[in-house]
């Protein structure tokens, strides 16, 4: 029993981080109906930034969140204004965003591979190998920091969406784009800001990826498959769904690793994805995925 609880704790710590990784993805879909296949490559790019900041300048990966958030916010706004404004009126818009972000992801992957080669990287701050005991249970310090800060960031996002004027605009656009426009929300501005926030969260995620998960450019495909699985499970566009989906799948994959074998962890995600698509394509908390 103790062992199972220990595995569940590992799973929850992992799930907290996954929730942060997936939050930007679900926000982009919720507000702009963009299925952003490039989200994970944004995270990997941020991980490179955090890694080199640590290696070259000695900046702690967690501290580098402070510059990664604004940097990736502006990057996100730039990407939105460059690419997505052009396809706003196109027929089969959602499908178009999938193909477009697919192209962007490939491009960025190639650029990262060209600049930084395909070797595995991992920042190694001092707390990476530390751990402490909470009662009988082992808590790895690095994971603990990441999961806690992830939940803090997600809480901040929730407060922002709930209590600021821009947040109202974003939520109104999520609910009904045309109606939001009708009551005076500048939908394009709101969309650009939302995509900026989505990318900023990818930036923050990268800081944690840099020391928690060894990465190289090509890795982002495995990540996007995993993140999409948990976002679909929670319901695309639902922030609450992403968090719940992440925690469930974090625990599920930890149990799979513990019971079946380390190679099979991601299988929990893919199996969950197929299962949920079969039974309830809109996910736990989401609205129906329309064409």
């Amino acid at each position, binding site marked *: 029993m103790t062992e199972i609880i220990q595995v569940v704790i590992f799973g929850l710590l992992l799930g907290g981080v996954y929730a942060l990784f997936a939050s930007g993805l679900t926000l982009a879909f919720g507000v702009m109906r963009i299925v952003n296949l490039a989200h994970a490559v944004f995270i990997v790019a941020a991980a490179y930034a955090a890694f080199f900041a640590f290696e070259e300048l000695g900046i702690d990966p967690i501290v580098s969140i402070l510059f990664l958030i604004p940097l990736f916010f502006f990057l996100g706004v730039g990407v939105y204004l460059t690419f997505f404004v*052009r396809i706003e009126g196109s027929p*089969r818009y*959602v499908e178009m965003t999938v193909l477009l972000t697919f192209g962007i992801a490939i491009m960025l992957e190639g650029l990262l591979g060209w600049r930084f080669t395909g070797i595995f990287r991992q920042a190694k701050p001092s707390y990476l190998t530390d751990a402490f005991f909470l009662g009988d249970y082992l808590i790895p310090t690095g994971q603990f920091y990441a999961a806690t800060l992830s939940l803090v960031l997600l809480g901040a996002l929730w407060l922002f969406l709930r209590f600021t004027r821009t947040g109202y605009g974003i939520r109104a656009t999520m609910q009904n784009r045309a109606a939001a426009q009708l009551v005076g929300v500048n939908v394009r501005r709101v969309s650009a800001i939302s995509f900026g926030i989505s990318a900023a969260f990818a930036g923050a995620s990268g800081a944690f990826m840099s020391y928690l998960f060894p990465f190289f450019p090509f890795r982002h495909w495995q990540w996007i*498959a995993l993140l999409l699985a948990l976002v679909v499970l929670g319901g695309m566009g639902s922030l609450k769904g992403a968090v719940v989906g992440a925690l469930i799948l974090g625990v599920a994959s930890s149990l799979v690793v513990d019971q079946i074998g380390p190679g099979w962890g991601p299988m929990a995600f893919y199996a969950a994805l197929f299962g949920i698509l079969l039974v309830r394509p809109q996910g736990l908390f989401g609205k129906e995925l329309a064409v």
Partner: protein
Amino acid sequence: MIEDRAAPDELEPDVVAAVAPPKGPGKSRWLVVAVLMIGLLLLPLGRPVLGSYNYIILLVTNGLMWVALASSWNILGGYSGYISLGHAVFLGVGGYVAAVPLYYHGVSPFYTAIGGGLVAVALGFVVGLITLRTRGPAFIISTIALLFMFLLIFEQSEYLGGTAGLPLPVVPISQDWLKAPFFYAMLIAAVGSIVLSYQVAHSKFGLGLRAIAEDETKAEVAGVPTRFYKILAFALSAFWVGVAGAMWGYSLAFVRPTLFFTVAISAQMVLMAIIGGRGTVAGPVIGAALIVAVNEFSLAQFGSSEINIVITGGLLVTVLLFFPLGIVGTLRQKQLLPAFLDWD
């Protein structure tokens, strides 16, 4: 088969361009096709004439394989509009179906390649039953998950050689003619997939797929058996991909999960079909030829596959933003499409 087409004035302008019957007698295209076929059939015999013989044969074989893959992808992604980013799975399954009997029992893949295609069709049917319950983005996402699921399964399977894969023996013929059997096999796959694509485009089934692409709900109301058609399209689009996979693994003398089950292979198929023109017969063929040439050029020019990846992605983004109809579609819309490229 012109009677099968919908009256052009009932459709959107873009669609009119895509389904408008070809003008003129179209004799020139048969001449072009005949010259091309004879040239291709005789190419392996040109050994004494051509200097860098093996390079040319290899390049054309590679091009033919991509023609088969892109044309097959187009049956689902072009006609019905269901974008699959997981078609690399069928390439891998075909490759392994041929590789396992060769590795364990010495059965030549030239006999089992068709089996590779059939297994791919069966898999396409089963997977289609599940994933085609969803539409649009959810379907695309499920195909990505499918790809990674298969990568995982094949990497974890000891019988299939795990991550290292299976080494395969070389074809037991003289070194001089080593490339020729693969050349002809890929030629068959390429021609077969084009013929299949043409047949589908000119059938009631193909018309149904186009109706699904336009508006699935309306198509269903109009009596198109949408679910059956979609699954059939998914299964059919897997056949020649499976056959090509069987040949490809044998020609490389090994199979390995990371060789087949990669997003890069799916990405190339999608890019070729879209850049050439989705939903047209000639589009994927032109797209495949163009992208193989671009890849070859960029590898020779920059010597790194990373730059090549950047170019692949950049081309996809550019085409989507500025020419979403692709080469054939755009030319046809402007009524500039030469008759020999109009295979519809």
